[in-house]
C-alpha cells in the first residue's frame, strides 16, 4: 500500500519527522511511505493564489496518487503548527487532494501528552468541507516523552510501542482499503467515455464518431504529412518515416487521449488478423463508441482509465480472451504524462507473448505444465478464459479490471 507521510513540523529538528521516518523504515514490508517535504510552502494568502506552483502541485500529485496519508503532528499552543495548517489551507482552496482520502493521525511530544490536543484540532480541520479527508476513527497514537523514545539510529526503543504502532497501522491499512473501494466506485463512474469534456488538443467542429474523422480533422488543423519533418524528443523524422517505424513495431499500439478519445493505432495488419480488432473508421471515436453498449465492458474500461488517470498505478496489465495453446495475448495500459506530470491519456498495447515464453522454455530446457494448485487471480489471469464477447468490437474486454492495484503492478514507485 502506497502512503504519503506528512510531518507537521518544519523545525530544524523534528521528532515527528523522525517518527515518520521510523514508520517508513520499520514497516517497509507493510506499507510504502513517502515522507513529504513541506518546508518551502509559501504562507497561504487569498490574494496570491500559488496553487499552480511546483511545490504545491507536487504535494497534490503525491497525495492524490497515494492510498492514504499519515500525518504526524506536533503540538504548538494546544493546536497544530501553523506550517501544517498552512499546507492544508492550500490543499483545500482551489484543489482538494484530501477529498475522500484515508488519513491516520499520529503525534509526538516532549511531555506525556503526545500532542493530544493538536490531534483533536487536526481531526476537526480534516473534517472541514473543503478538506473532506476521512480520518481513521477511534485510534490514537500519542508518543510522549519523545526525547528519550528513540535510539541513536532513529529507532523506537520500546517494543510495546512498536507493537502498538504496528497494530494501528494494520488497522489503517484495512480502513484505507475499504474507504478507497468506496471512493473508486464514485470516481470511476465520472469517467466520461463519450469524450465530451474536451481537452487542449481536441479538434473542435468535427464529429468524433464520423467515419472520415481522420481526413476531416486533419484538414481542419492543416496537419502535416508525407516528407515534412517533425522534431521529436530525441530525433528528427518525417511523417512517412514515423509511419514506417510505427508500422513495423510488432505490437498493436493504441493512443487514447486524456479526453477518452481514440486517436491513433499503428495499422500494420488487416482488422481480422488483429488481436484487438480495430478499423480505420474508428479512429477519432469516443471510447463509448469504440466499445459496445455492454455496461459490464463500459464499467471495466472506466475503471482502467480512472485508475491510470488518478495515478493509482502507471500500468494495468491483463490477459484477454483469445489465448490458447499457441497464443498468450496480453493487453497493457500505461498512463502517459507530459513534462509536468499531467495525465495525457493511455498508451495501450496488445501483444502475443507466447513466442517469448517459448524462447524462454527453449533456452532453459523447461516445459509448461499445469499447476493443479494454481489459483486464478486478477493479476496473473494466465490460465483464465473469460467468455468472449462477440460484440466487443474494436476493443478487448478486460478480463478482470477490478485489479487490486498495489506496488507490484506499478511500473514506477513514486
Amino acid at each position: 500500500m502506497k502512503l504519503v507521510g506528512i510531518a507537521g513540523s518544519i523545525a530544524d529538528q523534528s521528532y515527528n519527522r523522525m517518527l515518520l521516518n521510523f514508520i517508513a523504515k520499520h514497516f517497509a514490508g507493510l506499507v510504502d511511505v513517502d515522507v513529504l517535504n513541506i518546508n518551502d510552502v509559501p504562507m497561504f494568502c487569498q490574494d496570491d493564489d500559488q496553487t499552480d506552483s511546483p511545490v504545491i502541485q507536487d504535494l497534490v500529485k503525491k497525495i492524490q496518487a497515494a492510498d492514504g496519508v499519515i500525518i504526524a503532528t506536533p503540538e504548538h499552543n494546544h493546536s497544530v503548527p501553523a506550517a501544517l495548517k498552512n499546507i492544508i489551507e492550500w490543499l483545500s482552496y482551489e484543489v482538494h487532494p484530501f477529498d475522500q482520502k484515508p488519513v491516520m493521525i499520529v503525534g509526538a511530544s516532549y511531555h506525556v501528552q503526545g500532542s493530544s490536543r493538536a490531534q483533536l484540532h487536526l481531526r476537526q480541520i480534516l473534517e472541514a468541507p473543503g478538506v473532506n479527508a476521512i480520518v481513521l476513527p477511534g485510534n490514537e497514537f500519542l508518543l510522549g516523552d519523545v526525547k528519550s523514545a528513540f535510539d541513536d539510529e532513529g529507532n523506537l526503543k520500546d517494543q510495546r510501542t512498536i507493537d502498538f504502532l504496528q497494530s494501528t497501522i494494520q488497522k489503517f491499512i484495512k480502513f484505507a482499503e475499504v474507504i478507497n473501494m468506496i471512493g473508486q466506485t464514485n470516481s470511476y463512474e465520472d469517467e466520461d467515455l463519450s469524450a465530451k469534456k474536451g481537452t487542449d488538443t481536441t479538434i473542435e467542429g468535427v464529429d468524433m464518431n464520423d467515419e472520415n474523422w481522420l481526413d476531416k480533422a486533419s484538414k481542419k488543423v492543416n496537419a502535416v504529412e508525407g516528407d515534412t519533418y517533425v522534431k521529436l524528443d530525441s530525433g528528427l523524422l518525417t511523417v512517412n518515416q514515423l509511419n514506417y517505424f510505427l508500422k513495423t513495431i510488432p505490437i498493436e499500439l493504441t493512443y487514447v487521449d486524456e479526453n477518452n478519445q481514440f486517436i491513433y493505432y499503428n495499422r500494420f495488419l488487416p482488422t481480422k488478423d488483429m488481436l484487438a480488432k480495430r478499423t480505420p473508421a474508428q479512429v477519432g471515436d469516443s471510447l463509448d463508441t469504440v466499445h459496445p453498449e455492454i455496461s459490464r465492458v463500459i464499467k471495466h474500461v472506466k475503471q482502467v482509465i480512472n485508475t491510470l488517470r488518478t495515478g493509482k498505478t502507471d500500468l494495468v496489465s491483463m490477459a484477454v480472451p483469445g489465448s490458447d495453446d499457441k497464443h498468450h495475448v496480453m493487453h497493457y495500459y500505461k498512463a502517459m504524462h507530459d513534462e509536468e506530470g499531467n495525465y495525457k491519456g493511455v498508451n495501450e498495447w496488445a501483444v502475443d507473448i507466447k513466442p517469448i515464453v517459448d524462447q524462454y522454455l527453449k533456452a532453459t530446457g523447461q516445459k509448461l505444465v499445469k499447476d493443479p494448485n494454481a489459483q486464478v487471480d486478477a493479476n496473473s489471469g494466465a490460465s483464465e478464459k473469460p467468455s468472449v464477447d462477440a460484440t466487443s468490437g474494436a476493443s478487448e474486454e478486460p478480463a478482470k479490471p477490478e485489479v487490486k492495484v498495489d506496488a507490484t503492478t506499478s511500473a514506477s514507485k513514486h
Partner: protein
Amino acid sequence: MKKFIAIVGSNSAKSTNRELLEYMQKHFQNQAEIELVEIKGLPIFKKSIDKYVPKRALELANRIEAADGVIIATPEYDHSIPAALSSTLAWLSYGIHPFVDKPVMITGASYGSLGSSRAQSQLRQILDSPELKARIMPSSEFLLGHSLQAFDDNGDLKSEAETEQLDGLFKDFLQFVDISEQLNHANDVNKQKAEQFSWDIG
C-alpha cells in the same frame, strides 16, 4: 483612556474581519484607543536551533505588552483559525510572552451564517496554552455571520441587534480589563512559568 491592540486575523487584502475591527475602532473611539495590527508578511513559524524570532514579531510583542488589552478578529479556514494567525501567535510565544495575563476579546466574521464559531473556540484553546496564557474574556462570543452584507457604505454595522450586542460586549471588556488588573496574584508565577516553558524542552 484604555489602549487596545486589534489583530486582524486575515492576511487577505479584502477582509470583513478587518472591516469589523475598523468599525470597532471608529464606533468605540470615545471609550478606547484601538490600534489595528496586520499579520501579513510575517514568515511561517519555525523552530530553529538559534531560536530566531523575526524583528516584526518582537515589535508587535512590545506593543501588546504596552497595551491594556488585545482584540482579535478571526476568520475561519477549515474549521480553524488561519495559518497566518496561528503562525503569528506561535512567534508571540517563542521566547517572548506578551500575552501572559493580557485581557483578550475574541471576535470574528464569516461570509456564511456561523461567524467563525469553530475558529473562535479553537482560538480560545490556543490562547489558553501555557506559552500564551492570555486572559480571555469568558462567556463572550461575537460571531458576525453573513459579513459581506453586514456593513453599510460608511462601514457601520447595519443590524441594530448586532450593534447592541457588540456595545454590551465591549462595555464588558472594558470592565473585564479593570477586573483583570486585580486578578494578578499569580501574574509573576504565570510569567515565570511561560518563560520557563522552553519550546525545546516543552
